[in-house]
């Protein structure tokens, strides 16, 4: 990959890490607060379905994960397995798509 591509990937990973820091904190705090008195699946779904604000929040969370995780995995594959070049990037693009697909299914199931 070109120097520019590498630098842009690094920037994307930094930016997505900043989003994740916020999203993970909000996600954990909300879960602890929401279930502290005990909650069932039906009650959770009754609260989340149709809530556009939380839908937007988790869509942003998912986007940050889809950007962040494959770039981090890219370095792990290069350094630990010596896997570099186009095949690695193609595999990671497929991994990113899989993350996006699975995450989108979960979000749509909970919020729509």
């Amino acid at each position, binding site marked *: *990959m070109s*120097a*520019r591509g*590498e*630098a*842009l990937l*690094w920037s994307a990973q930094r930016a997505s890490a900043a989003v994740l820091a916020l999203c993970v904190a909000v996600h954990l705090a909300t879960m602890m607060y929401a279930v502290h008195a005990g909650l069932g699946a039906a009650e959770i779904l009754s609260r989340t379905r149709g809530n556009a604000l939380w839908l937007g929040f988790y869509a942003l969370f998912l986007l940050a994960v889809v950007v962040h995780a494959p770039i981090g995995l890219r*370095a792990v594959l290069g*350094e630990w397995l010596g896997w570099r070049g186009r095949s690695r990037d193609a595999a990671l693009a497929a991994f990113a798509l899989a993350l996006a697909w699975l995450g989108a299914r979960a979000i749509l199931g909970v919020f729509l």
Partner: protein
Amino acid sequence: MSVLRVRVWRGGAEGAFQAFEVPRHASQTVLDVVTHIQRVLEPALAYRFACRVGMCGSCAMTVNGVARWTCRTHVDKVARGDALEIAPLANLPVIRDLVTDMREFFDKWARAKGQFSGTRTRADDFARVAPQTPARRDVDAAIECIGCGVCYSSCDVVAWNPDYLGPAALNRAWSLERDERDAARAERLRAVAGDAGCHACHTHMSCSERCPKGIAPTAGIAGLKRAAARAALRGKL
């Protein structure tokens, strides 16, 4: 007189430690110990030194598992009881005993475009650089490198990725990136960005922890990452 029990690496990549007993003295340096072994006990021992005062960067070795400049390392500070283990620097091919092949280390300085690229001729006046500017201060913080290889030997990323330019070469590139007189900064950023350059650094900071000159290559590498990101976003990388 007390005695130091010293184990010294003998051989090349394949080899073994050889044990010696060396008289212990006050204010004795690790280089004094190696020199005693070579002059008195084992004349065939190969090691490298020149200035003995922390300027030349040629005497670095691995002492009790940690890369150090041996001429300025007192035995009292690093010996475990009366035991010393002295090995060649890690991450570099061993030529023989305590001598490593530093060619790749310095070739990487060239690959990182570590040469100053000026625009003035001898007919021009001196460039005047204000000493208090942030850029000039960054240069001051990075410029005292003696090329000893301690940082390179201590870096995990060098061990994992043999193409990685390493902390010393990137620190040199950073000192030129911040030099307002240099005319090759864009080209240099291209040379040091990417998987073999500054973006491979994991910020473990072993280089900054162990640099005998107190330089923080990690800070310079972080600066290179920011500069490369800015250039990439502007389409200038």
